[in-house]
């Protein structure tokens, strides 16, 4: 008799735990041949709010951790991804119908991207900050500080590389992230939840929601405890919803126009650069007199 496989229940990652959506809703996830693969948790506004609360609480401590420590935690994520790279490759192949080589290329690039940001944590202060030479007897310097709670909205594809490329710069700077996974292939995000939960990432620092991007966007825009949004959007209407919503609370928003999937996420110079971290830091300038 053939053994019946044990299938995975796909949930959300909020505050280091794996809840179902409080709404009880699920979405069917089909593979490339339109066969049912899993039921995906369909996150609600309330799930988003719970994630924000967890992120808010976790962020101050994460920001206060040493940059060296944050770097090691990010590197640990890369180690866990490497160990479970087969699972990630499968998650891309099954849902997207990619060849093993293409899926492997994406997974490898994603792991390397995380390693790159693991090395940025203790360098952004030097690269993005500086002393200011003022015309007076003052010691004056500008330092990058995390913006706070940042929501990441991943595009449909590349489901893993884009998710990782948007989350890593955010948490690297000491922010807490809530990532909304690819609508198209949330299965890679489900694997990432488990990887993150076993990577020494403090609970609440990275939260992951699956569901419908368009449904969550207006709530992401209006929530006042969210300090910034990083979104790769290919739809002008979605961009407008987000920018109109944030106008009311002035949160920072970075929209990468991904029209027709034109962004080249494999471009290290663009996506592993400190300029992808800079939109999620606030520059604080500190003055002190220098005199005897």
């Amino acid at each position, binding site marked *: 008799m053939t053994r019946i496989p044990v299938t995975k229940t796909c949930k959300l990652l909020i505050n280091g735990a794996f809840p179902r959506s409080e709404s009880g809703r699920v979405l069917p996830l089909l593979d490339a041949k339109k066969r049912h693969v899993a039921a995906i948790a369909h996150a609600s506004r309330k799930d988003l709010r719970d994630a924000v609360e967890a992120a808010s609480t976790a962020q101050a401590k994460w920001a206060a951790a040493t940059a060296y420590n944050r770097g090691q935690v990010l590197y640990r994520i890369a180690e866990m991804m490497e160990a479970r790279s087969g699972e990630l490759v499968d998650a891309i192949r099954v849902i997207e119908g990619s060849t093993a080589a293409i899926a492997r290329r994406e997974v490898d690039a994603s792991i390397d991207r995380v390693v790159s940001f693991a090395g940025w944590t203790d360098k952004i202060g030097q690269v993005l900050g*500086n002393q*200011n*030479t*003022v*015309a*007076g007897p*003052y010691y*004056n310097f*500008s330092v990058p*500080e995390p913006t706070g709670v940042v929501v990441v909205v991943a595009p449909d594809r590349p489901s893993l590389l884009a998710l990782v490329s948007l989350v890593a710069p955010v948490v690297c700077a000491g922010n807490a992230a809530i990532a909304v996974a690819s609508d198209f292939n949330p299965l890679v995000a489900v694997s990432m939840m488990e990887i993150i939960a076993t990577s020494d990432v403090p609970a609440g620092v990275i939260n992951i929601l699956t569901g419908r991007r368009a449904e969550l966007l207006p709530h992401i825009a209006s929530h006042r405890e969210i*300090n910034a949004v990083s979104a790769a959007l290919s739809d*002008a209407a979605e*961009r*407008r919803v987000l*920018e*109109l919503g*944030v*106008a*009311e*609370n*002035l949160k*920072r928003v970075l929209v990468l126009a991904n029209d027709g999937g034109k962004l080249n996420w494999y471009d290290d*110079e663009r996506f592993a*650069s400190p*300029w992808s971290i*800079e939109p999620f830091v*606030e*520059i*604080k*300038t*500190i*003055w*002190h*007199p220098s005199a005897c």
Partner: protein
Amino acid sequence: MRCVTVTASTAPARWEYAPAPESVKAPIREQYDLFIGGRWIPSKGGKRFPTINPATEETLSRVVDASATDVDRAVEAARKAFPKWSKTKPTERAKYLFRVARRIQDKARELAVLETMDGGKPIKESRDVDVPLVAQHFFHHAGWCDKLRYAVPFRGRDHDPRPIGVCGQIIPWNFPLLMAAWKLAPALCCGNTCVLKPAETTPLTALALAEIFEEVDLPPGVVNVVTGGPSTGKALVEHAGVDKIAFTGSTEVGKRIATTCAGTGKRLTLELGGKSPNIIFADAAIDQAIEGIVNGIWFNQGHVCCAGSRLLVEESVLDEVIAKLRHRLKSLRVGDPLDKNTDVGAINSAEQLDTIRRYLKIGDEEGAKREEVINGPLPSKGYWCRPTFFTDVQPSHRIAREEIFGPVLAVLSFRTPEEAIVRANNTPYGLSAGVWTDKGSKVFEVARQLKAGVVWCNTFNKFDAASPFGGYRESGFGREGGRHGLMAYLAKT
């Protein structure tokens, strides 16, 4: 209502000061047209309105309330100038900005007098703070023109810093010339062209700056100045030919501008309001802190977005600080802004005076205790408000939460550093903060935890062209000044 008034009779014998009026005269035209495409051209459809001296209520000149057609012409001129200006060799662009800086220094005194007459700020401040900073801002940014690649290494397409295009720049009435410099100098340095709209009540120094641009042969259309009120600003924000909006002003208007720009692809930087905390620890040098409090809230009549309008004092020194503050206020001179001994000048407009008076009433009704110092009579004409502070203020009081933009201080207390930080950060704003303590480790830890773009430690209200300025949260986004300020005027990709 409890209001304590300390009059001069309870104060120790004072020196009487003889009037010391500034003698330099500022040339003011009877009326001004619009500065568009390097020429002074009459408005199409815009009415004229007077700009007055808030200290005397006399009309100084008549300027144009620029129409949408005028704005269109100004944007068109800036568009036309952009290709050549953006491709001008950076070292040559720099020379124009150096010239502007030098010309401002040449005309420093008359610009200071003009600023004081049109806006009401003491000549001491316009002469010693505003105008020198304006010249420095142009000089500093002149030097950046050919160094942008080193300011933002490997940023943008082909790693080549490029300008954004036409910048619509809308500035407030509290530091009219300085805000013009903060907007124009970095924009021009990066190769953008500009349409500047000065505030309705303080257009004259922006127009004087336009005269300087003429004098230094800045190519036509690189900077255009359109005077006017809210409808002029609205036309500029809505204009499809504008690539970037830079605004300094209230959070309310900033949000409206962000709404208008949503989904248009326009770049936006906002420098908005504040309710900044000034924290005095018991281990601070109290006498120096008193000077910091005075400079924090009564500088420029409190018309300062980053004013230290919420004073947080450690409970054990609260009585001492209030007693010393009260004493210090007795020697703070309110009156003729053109008098070189004046510390606090005129309120910028009748409208702003109404706002301030409304908040004084709110503070009384909320049960806070109001103190003001009557130190000599106020001029019979003009708009005036004596330096005022409230004690017995609760954090929930409106006078402790809302920006008043006047010479009104709310005094609160705290017991532990943790409580001070929580109270300081308990605001939607995050522009500036002050920390006073003689303990070095405390300075840096408190500064780290404060959610504010500028933290002044054992000092307050210091500005410099090389020092980035701008806020967290609802105080806006983007920085002005220094290396970080350049990013707001360079294309991202």
